[in-house]
């Protein structure tokens, strides 16, 4: 038995099978029910739009990393996730080139300019949505009703909010739940999003703290703000991308707190802002801006919610 060369390193000498790529793949898998729902309700062009957003997100990531002289890491699939989420956050009628612009902005500006995966301080897909909404507000709110004939419609929240959409009939709760309503490609079906969320929980990719505290806060506050009207509360919970935001966007690792307590505070903050925007702000929506604002607060929340260390000695006065 020869004394060959052995590898010397510090412990631990075994690692879990978990990888960044596997986590991103899980998120992609979890987004599939909502994509299917989008195709089902808004037609095949949902798929085209998603494909375009994904291709441009991945290509932008590769090009930016080349330009910045970094290793190209598109294999980690994080850009694919961003691409899908961008498509999920726009109406199906959006011109393809606008979706491409959104993807380029998300990856080049919001992600790579700040250091790439893990270093971005705001959710790239939501940053893209905010940019698109500011640049092409009409295009970004050109909703159509589900079905082949693409009749233009308003979202349930716009109807609730009143204004020009006032007077249209509110859809039934069941339609709200399964997603048979107007809205962005990926946001309408609470059912499909919950299936995806359940998968992520099962796989341990996310935990329930942010989704539950976010959705719970919206439920409580819209019930209070709405004058104790439980049906309005249910509309608010099921509508306007709350499930998409709470399950897939607010739980984005790099832009949410890492401490357990911080995650709950983050979820409550998102819920508070969403409810306030919906009731007292100019937009009928509110999820994306709430999450973006809370993204900015995440580092601060982490700082002040450092877990109590095991065996902490109480400081005597």
């Amino acid at each position, binding site marked *: *038995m020869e*004394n060959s060369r052995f590898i010397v390193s*510090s*412990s631990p000498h075994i*690692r879990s099978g978990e990888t960044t790529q*596997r986590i991103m793949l899980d998120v992609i898998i979890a987004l599939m029910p909502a994509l299917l729902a989008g195709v089902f309700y808004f037609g095949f062009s949902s798929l085209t739009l998603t494909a375009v957003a994904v291709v441009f997100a991945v290509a932008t990531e590769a090009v930016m990393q080349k330009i910045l002289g970094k290793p190209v890491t598109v294999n980690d699939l994080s850009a694919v996730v961003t691409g899908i989420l961008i498509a999920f956050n726009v109406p199906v009628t959006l011109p393809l080139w606008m979706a491409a612009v959104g993807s380029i902005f998300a990856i080049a500006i919001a992600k790579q300019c700040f250091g790439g995966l*893990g270093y971005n301080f705001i959710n790239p897909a939501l940053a893209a949505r905010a940019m698109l909404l500011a640049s092409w507000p009409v295009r970004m709110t050109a909703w159509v009703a589900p079905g082949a004939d693409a009749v233009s419609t308003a979202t349930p929240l716009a109807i609730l909010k009143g204004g020009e959409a006032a007077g249209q009939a509110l859809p039934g709760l069941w339609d709200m739940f399964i997603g048979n309503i107007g809205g962005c490609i990926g946001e309408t079906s609470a059912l499909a999003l919950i299936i995806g969320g359940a998968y992520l929980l099962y796989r341990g990719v996310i935990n329930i703290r942010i989704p539950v505290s976010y959705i719970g806060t919206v439920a409580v506050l819209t019930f209070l703000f709405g004058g104790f009207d439980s049906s309005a509360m249910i509309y608010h919970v099921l509508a306007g991308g709350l499930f998409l935001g709470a399950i897939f966007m607010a739980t984005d690792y790099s832009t949410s707190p890492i401490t357990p307590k911080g995650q709950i505070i983050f979820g409550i903050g998102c819920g508070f802002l969403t409810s306030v925007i919906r009731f007292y702000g100019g937009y009928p929506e509110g999820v994306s801006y709430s999450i973006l604002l809370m993204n900015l607060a995440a580092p601060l929340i982490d700082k002040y919610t450092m877990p109590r*260390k095991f065996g902490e000695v109480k400081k005597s006065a």
Partner: protein
Amino acid sequence: MNIRTLTFKGGTHPPHSKKATESLPIERANEPKVVVIPMQQHIGAPCEPIVQAGDEVKVGQKIGEAKGFVSVPVHSSVSGKVAAVEPRLYSGGTAVPCIVIENDMQNTVSDQVVPKGDISVLSAEDIKNIIKEAGIVGMGGATFPTHVKLAPPPDKNVDTVILNGAECEPYLTSDHRLMLEHPENVVFGLQALMKALGVKKGFIGIETNKPDAIEKVFEAARGIEDIEVVALKTKYPQGAEKQLIYACTGREVPSGGLPADAGVVVNNVGTAAAVATAIKTGMPLIERIVTVTGAGVNNPKNLLVKIGTSFKDIIEQCGGLKGKAGKIIAGGPMMGITQFSLDIPAIKGTSGILVLSEEEARLPEPSNCIKCGKCVETCPINLMPVNISMYSLADRYDEAEALNAMDCIECGSCSFVCPAKRPLVDSIRVAKREILARRKKAQSK
């Protein structure tokens, strides 16, 4: 059997990897032709050799005298002739003074080895002396002198002894086999330790993945009122001292403190068995059970090995290395120390020799931290490993200290779970060393 199942907060679940050896009875290893016995096998001051080249020594004869209180003597594991007293490489990675003995294969036992009599007639002081003179140290791997643990400062009110039978390190089965084959020694050792400390409460904690050991030890302790056998949830690092104390008693060892601050003394089940042997037969600590395992070994085994037997001899008895071995680890895969040579002796703390294949040993390529927070969730001390690590990698040790880097127990759970394969515990270790060095420097000013 009425047994409580206890646990701690945090932790992780590495694959057990114990199947290869958990059902293999302990085998006595072949007599080594030569033993190399280091004078430093424990935490504390090294021993002074008290034999010279050419001297005849016998089994159990003291060959190294303890220097100072935190130190224990070392004994010969064979009978034969001292060939040399010289520095040799040991598993700590450096060369230390060692006594090299050529085995005459006679196994002549030293007349220093005499049974110490019935435990009921031994006083607490007697027991502590026997333990010190038998060279007994923590056999879980930390090798802290046991008699020092038995002499807590008078202001600490120690009321509990816990025996650690968790064996939460993957692959290792030496404690498991010991508890199955010699449960009476484990229980006897615990009674001796309790008597030495004058305490009335003893726990033996065993992880639930060893139900047969729980049963055997429970049977052995039946009818002894002061001793409670508890099941511990199978989770890493269940056998870490602070986590074990919390699981058994609900007490937290204060930050920077010792188990005695929580009123507890913890010993490994192997240590207790060594205490039992020292009292019953008078034989000091000259051999131990070593689990030899891993994909890189042909025939994994649980071997009863004489201290000083070389890793090479031991692995050869297990069918030799299988294919091209990648890593040789003294201890388990979570906290063991990699070796660059097989020409090192098994010592009192060698609980296992783990050989990983080249494939398993490949070092993972770290990528960007994705801030998933899994390390925060898994840390048994509730630290934020990702943040301490980032400060450490940026040489910002003051900030690392402010985030309680010094409380890290280096269990490696954070590195294990990290999907980006970041060197988390590695960088925290660096921070700890830097912080200690700075404290020392500040003190000397």
